[in-house]
């Protein structure tokens, strides 16, 4: 099913969260940061494999939905979070 869909191929590529358009759902692949940061993000639900939905990516805060709660991220942070 994945192979039939041109977009799903793109989804398999690892890209920074900051490039994901509003409304799309992705899975967290890896966090490009130190141990401290990664553990802090893990406490907030950001562990590899977690499903994230981009609520807003149009300037201003970057807002994502994680398990039915809203997290606002700085743009720098959204660049460190790699998703597929």
């Amino acid at each position, binding site marked *: 099913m994945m192979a039939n869909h041109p977009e799903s191929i793109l989804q398999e590529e690892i890209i920074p969260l900051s490039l994901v358009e509003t409304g799309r759902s992705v899975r967290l692949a890896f966090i490009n940061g130190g141990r401290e940061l990664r*553990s802090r993000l*893990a406490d907030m*639900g950001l562990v*590899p494999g977690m499903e994230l939905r981009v609520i807003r990516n149009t300037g201003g805060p970057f807002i994502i939905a994680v398990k*039915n709660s*809203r997290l*606002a991220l700085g743009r720098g942070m959204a660049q460190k979070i790699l998703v597929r």
Partner: protein
Amino acid sequence: MHDSRDSITIALAGNPNSGKTTLFNQMTGHRQHVGNYPGVTVEKKDGFCRHKGSAIHVVDLPGAYSLTARSPEELAARNFLFDEPPDVIVDILDASNIERNLYLYTQLLELNIPLVIALNMSDMAKSRGIEFDLKKLSQLIGAPIIPTVAHKGRGVDELLDAVVSTAKQEGEYKPAPINLGRDIEKEIEKIQKLIVAENTLPAKYNPRWASIKLLENDPEIWGIVSSPDLRTAVNQSVARIEQVFGDHPEIVIADQRYGVISGACQEAIRLTVEARHTYSDKIDEVLTNRILGVPIFLLLMYVVFQFTFTFGAYPVTWLENGFLLLGNFLRSLAPNQADNILFSLIVDGIIGGVGGVVVFVPNIFLLFLAIAILEDSGYMARAAFNMDRFMHKIGLHGKSFIPMLIGFGCSVPAIMATRTLENRRDRFTTMLVIPLMSCGARLPIYTLIIPAFFPLAWQAPLLWIIYLIGVLLAIGGARLLRATLLKGDNDPFIMELPPYRLPTWKGISIHVFERTWMYLKKAGTIILAISVVIWALMYFPVKEEFDRDYEAESAQAEALFLDGLKHIHSIVDMEVSFEQFRDELEDHGGKSEIHHDESMQAFQEILHDIRNARDSFNQTIQQENIQEKSLDFVHMERMLDSTLMEIERRSPLLYSAAIQYLDELKKPFEEKRREIERSKHAEKLSYSMAGRIGRGMEPALKPLGFDWRIGTALLGAFAAKEVFVAQLGIVFSLGESEEHSDALRAQLRREYTPLTAFCIMLFCLIAMPCMATIAATRLESGSWKWALLQLVGLTAFGYGVTFIVFQTGRLFGLGI
């Protein structure tokens, strides 16, 4: 664990925004106590309630996502749970956000303390299409679950029932911590066995929990491990886990926990639609909009500022007048008050000092009301985000913006408002630079000095420049602090945006009264003490022998006045005796007892009319700011003259007597009396410790262009900034009221150069935050260290800046 079976201690745990504090308020009402956890500045709240014969002590732990040692809040919560284990932990879960909330629960399970879950906001979750199979969920996660709706008080009784029955359960509590997967459990078991065998860790830590924390690289637990064998074993386990999973153990463990939670939720929760956030998301599209977000925020802040200081101005004036009346009333009780130490202490020291701080209570109350509404509605998180990009550049957090803005009104509520900052470094940095935001009490200093030395065209820009200098120095100071004393990485900016909610009255009122009460308590303790010290500095040593014989001088003036009055009495030639004439004019005797004499009444009326005409003339000139010799001024003068002429026409004799009385007798007499009073005051002050300190400081102040009089006034400014103006009036033996400020300005112009004047403003802006500010910093930082650092640091900084400005100015001949 507890001796009495009727007394139960419970701890409330939960994520931020889970409704924990609302539930706490519901349980305890106003029977709360706010303190600090030992050794840290984290706020500790506890309270009491009774439930069906059991006394329950409720501790509200700081909101946390996890039990790591990463933030002081989490550490404080964790330490509390180990040091004073409660009988039951109540974990509050936001029902609409249960999966992420359960993460903390999985860690609480490892503590070996009985747990009860409050599934909060369950009504909202239900209406949003989330269905719970509570029985199944309770089985899966191993704790009783009670649905609650905290803000409506629903489910609280049932929750307390469950708490009491859990606390009184017979037999040992056997929790079933979640299984972290075979590979990790194997390593945990190894470490756990070693811990038990070595028995070197404090008994309060249960071995399984300590093992997990060691694997997770928890610095606090690693710090107490002394056994090299244990360290080696843990390092080996970590290496094995990293090899198997390709990631650090803490990430793998977190992943496992989420996995277990996810599994349990899939079995017991049915999600029909995800809708809770739709309205919130819509509001956010406006309030955090890239273009509109910041202007809306600034507008809201403007409203808060206006609300606090404009609305608050009325009750503040009432309080001020109240204290004035109280002081005057007490003065009237002691006939010889001038020499009475006790009265001076009470009236000038305590009422003056503490009253000067208490009058700000309405501001504090309104400000915290506004902040509570912003916070409880969920807007504060958005406001922080809107300002973060800008504040980040100066090394501060988005949330720092609000306290700094409040600083323009008064530093004390501003410092108290730093409580909204979670990160200690951000909080302390903000607190320390807040006094650089030019507060309202410094405005009287600027408005005294600027018109005295600078032409009209410069006045407004100069005032603006002074404020700007404060802001720029605050930014510079914040960067400096973040690069030195409060060094550390910025917290990664990630924040939960809670859904917008209508704040509840109960929550807001508890919050507001608590803060206001804390402020009052401070006024009653630290500020009372400092007020007494400053009063003593100004009062002692008491001067007994004066340079001039003031008593003889005032007796002489009195005699001169009576002679003049006799003369006028003879001119007007009326039936009333001189004594009656005097009493009626000087308002001595009761009016009703004096029989009415026609000519006396006419004289009184003429006096009254002349005074009225002159007063209204002066008032208009002042209110409309009419310049002398301007066309309007001449016009006004003509009007006054014609009014006076009309009065004269009624009785030329009485009129000339009245003018003589007012201008040649009453006015010089009053002036003389005031001059004596002021000179005496000035002599006393110059003789007092404060005066001597001022003189002693003169060599140090000279490089700034200041003399001892400014030094003494600066000492007064430490009590409250606006006291500087009054104090300067006293040392120059001029009055301190509004009508004399022009005389004071003229005097200042004679004594100082514009450069010195600018330096005075600069020094008052930067150096020596007032005692209320220092007291607030002491209270909020939890130690004198930071308060003294603020006092000494800012004073040294202010000295340095003023020194450079004065010396440079002199070198280039600017403003001399």
